[in-house]
């Protein structure tokens, strides 16, 4: 694995495990609070049933949150260990989305995924694909100011998967169809992705839409899939 890929995956794992520790901290305090309330009952203090219900719901919600985080990490780990060579457009997008939510939250940027209704399969090294997509998302997040918005909008059409990442007002409205001819040169932060894009049969189109950045990652779909 390239150093840059390893660093990216390390950052994501650090972020998710940090988040999971927050989840555990909330569960720990919530269960501790339940114990506190029950101890009060022993002292003839009537516990507040509403409060107990609230704390129990909080624990359940945090378990669900932790489960989502670990599922995202598990998806990446399996993609790496199995050397997965095919992935659904929506699966790839939601994997990247789930793993990069924390970075968006830290940057105070709203991050939205708009999955496609017409899912299709991409045949390529999934870890490399993920790395390219995550790098593009990270680039947009870095450029977007606090309170901004990033949209990840995958689409499968005419034998190609197009994963559009749009920041700022460029994220509004329908997906724009772009080709290589529409794009400008890749910014320096993304330029070294070129060496990965070629072997994947992928293209990356960069456009500064004036109202924000658009990145279109274009990949061939599995033969026979539209």
């Amino acid at each position, binding site marked *: 694995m390239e150093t840059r890929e390893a660093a990216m995956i390390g950052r994501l794992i650090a972020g998710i*495990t*940090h*988040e999971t*520790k*927050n989840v*555990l*901290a*909330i*569960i*720990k*305090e*919530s269960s*501790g*609070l339940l114990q*506190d309330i029950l101890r*009060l009952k022993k002292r003839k203090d009537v516990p507040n049933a509403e409060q107990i219900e609230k*704390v129990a719901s*909080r624990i359940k919600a*945090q378990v669900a949150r932790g489960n989502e985080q670990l599922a995202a990490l598990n998806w990446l780990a399996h993609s790496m260990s199995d050397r997965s060579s095919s992935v659904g457009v929506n699966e790839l997008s939601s994997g990247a989305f789930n793993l990069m939510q924390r970075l968006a*939250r*830290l*940057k*105070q940027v709203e991050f939205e995924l708009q999955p496609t209704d017409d899912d299709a399969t991409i045949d390529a090294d999934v870890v490399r694909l993920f790395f390219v997509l995550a790098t593009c998302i990270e680039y947009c997040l870095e450029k977007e100011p*606090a309170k901004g918005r990033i949209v990840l909008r995958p689409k499968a059409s005419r034998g190609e998967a197009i994963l559009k990442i749009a920041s700022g007002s460029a994220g509004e409205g329908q997906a724009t169809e772009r080709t290589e001819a529409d794009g400008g040169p890749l910014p320096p932060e993304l330029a070294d992705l070129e060496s990965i894009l070629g072997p994947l049969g992928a293209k990356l189109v960069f456009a500064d839409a004036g109202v924000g950045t658009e990145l279109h990652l274009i990949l061939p779909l599995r033969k026979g899939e539209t």
Partner: protein
Amino acid sequence: MKSWKVLLVDDEEEFVTTLAERLKLRGIDASIATNGKAALASIGADPPHLVILDVLMPGLGGLAVLDQIRTTDPKIKVILLTGRGAIHEDDERVPPGAFDYLIKPVNIDDLIEKMREALDAP
């Protein structure tokens, strides 16, 4: 312990809310802030004896808040909270202005003991 006035600062609102409830059940006057800016406003309006401060928060981070507290009211004791699994070798030093740091999830008895140590310190 009843006279302790503590501000809990963490962007994980449910964490600070629950911890504050538990501290209040133990007679500690605990209030919360869920970002650095709100923490500084709260400190300015009603200075606590002690601040429990998360290091990594969106916007104004814990270390920036710590710097501000050092400048404006160095008498306030600060204990840092971090979600990191382990402190790197480079990070073993407690940042200037902080009394100590604790790693999340934290045991409430350990936290109260640390708070006591901080408040007893000169």
